[in-house]
């Protein structure tokens, strides 16, 4: 879908609810250097979300949607979980898959889009929770990586099954006691970033969403690498404040505490050689473009 086709019929413009009018007037579709700094000045691609007050996942959603390099030609694939409550409010094409099936659905989708639109860049981004990515859907996740499917997988890691009351998940830290896991986790958190690297992902990052600039950078990198080279994986810590006994204002601090160098969400990045080369090329082009824009602005 090109953004030029997303236009409201002139004769019915006045009856359209304002959120649709705003999307057409001031959303950042097609803007080359869109990013999290557009939040507050442009129409966001997420309307009111239905997550809990202060949920870090809602921050992550906003940063990701603001950072997608090509939202009008992106299809997001979701799965069961808190994220599936948000997708109906998102102005990017999206598909809800069966629990755990998201990477299989995305594989078919990406291939179909490549056949249907050979001359167009079409990005596919999977966004699912840790249950869908690591437990129920691990088979589909890994197989997509083994096959070198060209899409990005984002895991919102809240370290448990949040919206069903707090059951143990593979990404839960060892020893953690949750409401529905009273014995405490007996084994270590699954090291999915390392597994992703070994499974063929070309760009892997493990971090929190406390820093919007960082989220923007990793999203853009992951999408670009997936588009040109092969699978990419982002594991973003989005703590469930309700399930870990925090207040709505404490999500940010929880993420900051968890990203310290010795903690489990200390920034971790794996980049393959071809991906490194591509990112260097993109950075050089970006620098060139910005310098030219600056020069033009100076002349004006």
């Amino acid at each position: 879908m090109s953004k030029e086709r997303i236009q409201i019929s002139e004769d019915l413009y006045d009856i359209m609810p304002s959120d649709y009018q705003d999307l057409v007037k001031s959303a950042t579709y097609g803007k080359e250097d869109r990013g999290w700094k557009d939040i507050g000045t442009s129409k966001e691609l997420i309307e009111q979300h239905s997550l809990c007050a202060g949920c870090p996942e809602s921050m992550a959603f906003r940063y990701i949607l603001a950072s997608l390099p090509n939202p009008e030609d992106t299809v997001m694939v979701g799965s069961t979980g808190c994220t599936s409550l948000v997708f109906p409010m998102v102005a990017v094409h999206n598909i809800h898959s069966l629990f755990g099936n998201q990477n299989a659905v995305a594989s078919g989708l990406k291939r179909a889009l490549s056949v249907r639109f050979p001359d167009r860049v079409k990005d596919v981004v999977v966004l699912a929770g840790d249950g869908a990515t690591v437990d129920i859907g691990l088979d589909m996740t890994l197989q997509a990586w083994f096959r070198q499917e060209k899409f990005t997988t984002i895991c919102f890691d809240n370290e448990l099954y949040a919206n069903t009351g707090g059951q143990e998940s593979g990404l839960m830290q060892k020893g953690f006691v949750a409401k529905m896991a009273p014995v405490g986790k007996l084994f270590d958190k699954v090291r999915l970033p390392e597994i992703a690297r070994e499974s063929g992902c070309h760009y892997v990052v493990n971090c929190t969403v406390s820093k919007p600039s960082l989220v923007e950078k990793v999203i853009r990198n992951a999408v670009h690498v997936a588009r040109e080279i092969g699978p990419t994986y982002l594991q973003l810590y989005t703590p469930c404040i309700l399930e870990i006994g925090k207040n709505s204002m404490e999500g940010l601090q929880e993420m900051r505490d968890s990203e310290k160098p010795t903690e489990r969400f200390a920034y971790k990045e794996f980049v393959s050689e071809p991906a490194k080369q591509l990112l260097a090329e993109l950075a050089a082009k970006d620098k060139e473009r910005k310098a030219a824009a600056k020069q033009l602005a100076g002349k004006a």
Partner: protein
Amino acid sequence: MSTYRVLPGPEHFLPPAAASMGIRLPNPGEAHINGAIVSEDQAYEEAARQFLMAKVPTIFPGPLVLWAWNEKAAKKATAIRHLFNTMKECAQPGQKPMLIPMPDYRPKYPKINPEVEINPNHPNLTIWHNKIDCCMFIGVHCHQANLSLKIIRGGTSCYTVAMCAQAGHEDAMLSFRDASVEKIMKLAETIKRLKGTVELRSNSAKG
């Protein structure tokens, strides 16, 4: 031939799909009223009468016409606006025509604003809130229109008209098929022609 008739509800919580009750779709050049196949001309007259009779006659344009996908969609939008303006011109005292969009089909959280839009997953909210007693769907994808029409028949007494661009809708009380700009304009003309010949309905929508 089926004896079942597609009538204003409230029918019950889960009204049967009219197709499962033996109601069939009209052939080209035909329409149906309450499930009985009639000529298109008859349907224009009846639809116009229903609009003129209703206290809150309403058009629900869907995404296929709200968004200017192509020239045809934009032209249909212009025709819909003309139809709405005609309804307003022909309105009797106590009548309040409305034009409420169905911009998309997603279930909206925490809730829709029934004053400004209708959603196919709970169209009854908009109908109850605005006391709509006659409505017309146009530019709504068939599967979503069928869903809405059934919910409306189940939970409200609203009279439903479908101006369908495909083969029509069994679940509407009156359905045209192969909707075009010409057909919308003809409906507007019929409303104009019948103005003053129809009395306003005395009771409004129950739900």
